[in-house]
C-alpha cells in the first residue's frame, strides 16, 4: 500500500470510529449517578446508586426512554462537597440529561447551584430544609425534607410519650442542622422543654459524653437526628450506659443499615420514615426483595429513593415527549405521579413548585431485629 493510500484508509477508519461513537451517543441518554460512595455518606450513597441501577436495568430491558437506552456512570463524591461540585460540572460537560444524586445535604447545597446554572434537572436524596427553599427550579427531592418529616413526630412526643422534657442528639452538618432547627421550633410550639441539645461531628465514633449528658438531663425521650453509622454508635452507647428513655428518630434510626450495625442495641428504637422497605405496600416489598436478590443485602430507604428518581425521569420525559431539560423541570412542578398509573413510583408522589416532595409516610419501630411499621402518616 502506498503512503497516500495508507493515510486515506486511516482517515476513513478514524472517521468511521468517530461516526460510530456519535451514533452510539445519539442512541443513549445520560443519567449520571453522582453519589457518596465512600466517606461518611457511603451507606446512603451506595444504596441510592444501587437502587438507581435496578431502575436503569428495568427501563433499558423495556426499551429505554423514548427509544433511547439509559447510560448511567457512577461518580464518587467521597462525601466531600467540593468534590461533588466538580463532579456535577464534569457530568454536565459530558452531556447529562438529568443528574441522579447527591444524597448528603452539605454536598447538594453546594453542587445544585452548578446544575441550576446549566439548567440540568437533579434528583437529590438530601433532606435539609433549605435545599428547596432557595428558588432553584431544577432541584427535586426523592424524600420529604426535614420541615415535613420532623413535624410528623410532634404528635408522637406530645400524645404518645407525653413528654414534658426532651433531649436532642444531632449531627452538626447541613442535614442535622436543618432537622435540629425544625425540631426546636416544633417543640416550642408544642410546649415541650428541650433540656439537652447535644451536637456531634459527622463521623464521630465516641458517644459516651453525648449519652451521659442526655442521661443527666432527665429527659422523657431523646430525638436522634444522626446519619446511619453515628445512629448505630449512639444506640450502642445508650445500652452501655443503661439509658432507658425512648430513642426516637427521623428516617435513619430504624433503617436496615443501622439495625445491622447496632445489632441488639437497635431494639425498641422508633422513627418516622418517609419510605420504608418494610411498608405494607406490595410494590415496595417486591422492590426490597428484588434488591436483596441482586445485591445479596437489604437496602434502606435510600435504595428506593434512587429507584424512583430514575423511573420519575422516564415517566416525565415520556409525558413531555422529548429530551428537553427545561420542559422536564417545568413539568415536574406541581406534578403528581399516581401509583395506579405509574406503578414504579411505588407510592403516589407529588412535587410542589419548589421541588419539595409529598407522599404518605410511616411510623416504625425496631422489633426482633427488623423495622416494623406501627402506623401510617398521611401525605402533608
Amino acid at each position, binding site marked *: 500500500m502506498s503512503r497516500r493510500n495508507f493515510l486515506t484508509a486511516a482517515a476513513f477508519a478514524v472517521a468511521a470510529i468517530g461516526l460510530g461513537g456519535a451514533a452510539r451517543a445519539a442512541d443513549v441518554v445520560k443519567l449520571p449517578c453522582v453519589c457518596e460512595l465512600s466517606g461518611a455518606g457511603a451507606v446512603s450513597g*451506595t444504596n441510592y446508586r444501587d437502587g438507581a441501577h435496578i431502575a436503569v436495568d428495568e427501563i433499558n430491558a423495556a426499551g429505554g426512554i423514548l427509544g433511547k437506552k439509559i447510560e448511567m456512570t457512577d461518580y464518587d463524591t467521597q462525601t466531600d462537597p467540593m468534590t461533588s461540585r466538580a463532579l456535577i460540572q464534569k457530568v454536565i460537560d459530558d452531556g447529562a440529561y438529568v443528574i441522579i444524586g447527591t444524597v448528603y445535604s452539605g454536598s447538594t447545597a453546594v453542587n445544585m447551584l452548578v446544575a441550576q446554572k446549566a439548567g440540568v434537572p437533579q434528583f437529590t436524596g438530601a433532606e435539609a430544609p433549605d435545599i428547596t427553599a432557595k428558588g432553584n427550579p431544577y432541584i427535586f427531592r426523592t424524600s420529604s425534607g426535614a420541615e415535613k418529616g420532623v413535624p410528623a413526630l410532634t404528635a408522637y412526643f406530645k400524645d404518645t410519650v407525653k413528654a414534658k422534657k426532651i433531649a436532642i442528639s444531632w449531627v452538626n452538618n447541613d442535614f442535622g442542622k436543618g432537622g435540629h432547627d425544625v425540631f426546636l421550633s416544633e417543640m416550642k410550639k408544642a410546649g415541650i422543654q428541650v433540656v439537652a441539645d447535644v451536637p456531634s461531628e459527622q*463521623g464521630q465514633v465516641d458517644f459516651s*459524653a453525648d449519652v*451521659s*449528658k442526655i442521661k443527666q438531663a432527665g429527659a422523657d425521650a431523646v430525638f436522634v437526628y444522626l446519619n446511619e453509622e453515628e445512629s448505630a454508635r449512639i444506640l450502642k452507647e445508650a445500652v452501655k*450506659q*443503661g439509658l432507658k428513655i425512648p430513642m426516637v428518630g427521623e428516617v435513619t434510626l430504624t433503617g436496615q443499615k443501622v439495625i445491622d*450495625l447496632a445489632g441488639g442495641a437497635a431494639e425498641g428504637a422508633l422513627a418516622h420514615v418517609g419510605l420504608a422497605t418494610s411498608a405494607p405496600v406490595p410494590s415496595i416489598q417486591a422492590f426490597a426483595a428484588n434488591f436483596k436478590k441482586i445485591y445479596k443485602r437489604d437496602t434502606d430507604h435510600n435504595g428506593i429513593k434512587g429507584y424512583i428518581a430514575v423511573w420519575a425521569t422516564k415517566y416525565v420525559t415520556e409525558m413531555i415527549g422529548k429530551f428537553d431539560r427545561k420542559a422536564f423541570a417545568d413539568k415536574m412542578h406541581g406534578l403528581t405521579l399516581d401509583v395506579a398509573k405509574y406503578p414504579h413510583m411505588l407510592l403516589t408522589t407529588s412535587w410542589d413548585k419548589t421541588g419539595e416532595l409529598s407522599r404518605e409516610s410511616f411510623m416504625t419501630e425496631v422489633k426482633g431485629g427488623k423495622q416494623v411499621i406501627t402506623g401510617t402518616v398521611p401525605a402533608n
Partner: protein
Amino acid sequence: MSQFLQVVLSGLSTGSIYALAAVGFALVWQAAQTVNFAQGEFVMLPAFFALVAIHWFGWPLWAGFAFAMLASLAILGLAFKGLVVQPMMPDGGLPLVIATMAVSILLKESVKTFYGAEAQPFPSPLPDGTLQIGGAVISIRDLFDLLASLAVVGGLTLFLDRTRTGRQMQAAAQSPAVAEILGVDVARMTLYAFLVNAALAAFASFLVSPTYLAKFSNGESLGLVAFIAAIVGGFNRIRGALVGGLLVGVLDNLVATYVTQEYRAALPLVLLIAVILWRPQGLLGDAEGRTV
C-alpha cells in the same frame, strides 16, 4: 457526682485503647527512631482480618480473632519491618516517616477496595451487661477494655524490665552499636519490637471495633489521638504512653460533657501545644539530646 464518675470511667475505657496504640508509637520510635504514621491503620486493619475469617471462611469468633492476630503479626510486624522499615532505615528517619504515610494510605485504600467503604458490625465476645459503681452505670465491655489494656501494658512493662529478652530489647533501642558489641542480636530485638507493636494494634482493634464499628477510615482519628497521647505522655516511655492515652480519653470526655461538645476535637491539640511548651519531653518522658 454519679455523672462525673460515669464520664471518668468511660473516658478511662476509651483512653486505655488510645494507650495501646500510643504504646505502639513509643515501641516503633525506640526500635527504629521513626514515627509510624500508619499506626491508626494498624489498629483498623486487624478487625477486617477477623471479619474475613468469620464471614468469608465461616470460622467461629475466637478462630477469627486468632487468625487476625497471626495475620497482624505477619503483615504489620514481619512484613512491615522487612519490606518497609529495614530497607529504608539507612536513608534516615524522614524517608521512613514518609514511607509510613504511604503505608497508611495503602492499607486504607486496600480495605476500601477489598471489603468496602461502609462501616461493618464487629462482634464482641463480651455480654452487653452493665454494673453499678458509685451510682454510675458502667458497661462490662468498658470495664473489660480498661482492665485488659492496663494488664497488657503492665505485662509489657514487666516483660521489658524483668526479662532477659526485654532488657536486650531496651538495650538495642537505646544504643544499638553498644548492644551489638555486648552480644545482643539487635536485628532480632528490633523485629520483636515490631511484632509486639502489631500484637498491641490487633488487641486494640478487637476492643475498639465492637463499639466504633469496623471501617476503613477508623485509623485517621485514632492514629492522630494516639500520636498526641504518646507525645503528651513521653514518646520514649511505655508508661508515658499509657498515662497520655488515659489522660486524653478522660479529658476529652470531661470537656465534651461539661465545657463544649462542639470543640472537643480541638482538645488533644490544645493539650499537645501545652505539653510541647511546658514539658517537651512529655509528662513521664526523658529529654533526649541529638547532635546535629
